[in-house]
């Protein structure tokens, strides 16, 4: 369900941000440094999709914050209307959307804040929060029914 075969040579989420023992201390770090975001020439990056770019290992695209998450959003393609509200308000660039279509969630960068669920306009919501360790099949089978409008 969530198998996103977007990227042929995907290098996202290779590193943990909290890198442990081999980090330098504050007195060992070089004063002033340049971190190139891309390998080689970076001209025309703005017109390239993420999967076409050649990210260097300094780019946080290659890092992951998945361990921050307690609840994860699960996406239900059947209900989604591609309004892109979740895309515009996702603080972690974790909603993958190509050609005006929402494809899924980038679980290496999602921190599970739940903003996407809150801004989803469909009935029932096409994104819902589930426990980090619940499987997608379970989550989709528990999806709530459409709520009827209350008559006033």
């Amino acid at each position: 369900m969530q198998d996103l075969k977007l990227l042929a040579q995907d290098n996202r989420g290779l590193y943990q941000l909290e890198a442990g023992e081999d980090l330098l201390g504050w007195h060992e770090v070089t004063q002033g440094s340049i971190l190139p975001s891309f390998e080689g020439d970076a001209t025309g990056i703005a017109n390239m999709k993420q999967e076409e770019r050649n990210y260097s290992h300094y780019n946080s695209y290659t890092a992951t914050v998945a361990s921050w998450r307690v609840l994860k959003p699960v996406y239900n393609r059947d209900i989604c209307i591609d309004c892109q509200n979740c895309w515009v308000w996702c603080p972690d660039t974790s909603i993958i959307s190509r050609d005006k279509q929402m494809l899924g969630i980038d679980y290496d960068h999602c921190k599970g804040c739940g903003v996407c669920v809150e801004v989803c306009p469909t009935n029932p919501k096409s994104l819902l929060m589930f426990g980090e360790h619940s499987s997608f099949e379970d989550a989709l089978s528990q999806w709530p029914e459409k709520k009827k409008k209350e008559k006033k």
Partner: protein
Amino acid sequence: MAITSIKNLKEFSTNNDRFEGAHTLCPGCAHSMIVRELMNCTDDNLVMTANTGCLEVSTAVYPFTTWDTSWMHIGFENAASSVTGSEVMHRVRKKKGTLPDPDAPVKFVAWGGDGSTFDIGFQWLSGAMERGHNFVYVCLDNENYANTGGQRSSATPIGSTTSTAPAGTHSYGEKQKKKDIVAIMAAHDAPYVAQLAPNKWKIMAKGFQKALDTEGPCFINTVSPCCTEWRFDPKDTITITDLATDSLMFPVYEIINGHELNILYRPKNVLKVEDYLGAQGRYKHLFKAENKHVIDKIQKDINEYWDMLQRREEARI
């Protein structure tokens, strides 16, 4: 001219993100929503600098960088001066013909939190505005020093509790009025000054495009709800921003050439300020009987300010 389409959200979403994930901002932080909205509304090359603040420490965690553009950080206060330095260098190298691609469009943007804009970097910002460089300064206003534990800044509004202005038996929290930074920047005779909010993405993207297009120093103040220090659930960031704009706590407006004021968003139903205050933990103490006068004062200030904005819009002064 390379500006992307923002006609509707579907077209806006075809832009390629240049602000990557795996930064260490809190879950639900509005800072990154604002940054993404700015970076998606243009495909020009961007040169960015940042003041110290949440945005800076969280997006440049050594050895990682979150930015897919040129991004620089020097000191706490000098994003405005480093961006003007970059802008002048670009102009001079263009004149001398030493740039590899002299025709490539470049835009200069500086980022600051409210602490580094209202207090610490104010002198540098004021100087850069006065010298009239071609750049955009964006202030991410979360009304406290959120990066260091929520101390008060001069952007903190009356009545909110912060770690250096705590509410208790003897105090109702912050007592000073918030500095009106938009009016101060408009008084620098800047060609474009605006206050925007991330929940109104279209107004915001249009404002950013206008600022990037305008020749000269532009200033944009954006409300950025801070789930940690304002004390609300991370999922409610957009809801809180809606309450902020609809209760007119953060009116959305622009000032062109220092005098031409346009209100960009008029709420259909203006909410009472209690709805906005009650949604956040930092105003909890105001709902005690002895602090009722503070809420009345906040409401009165908001009404007067909104009235003033409407009069200014009508009079074009």
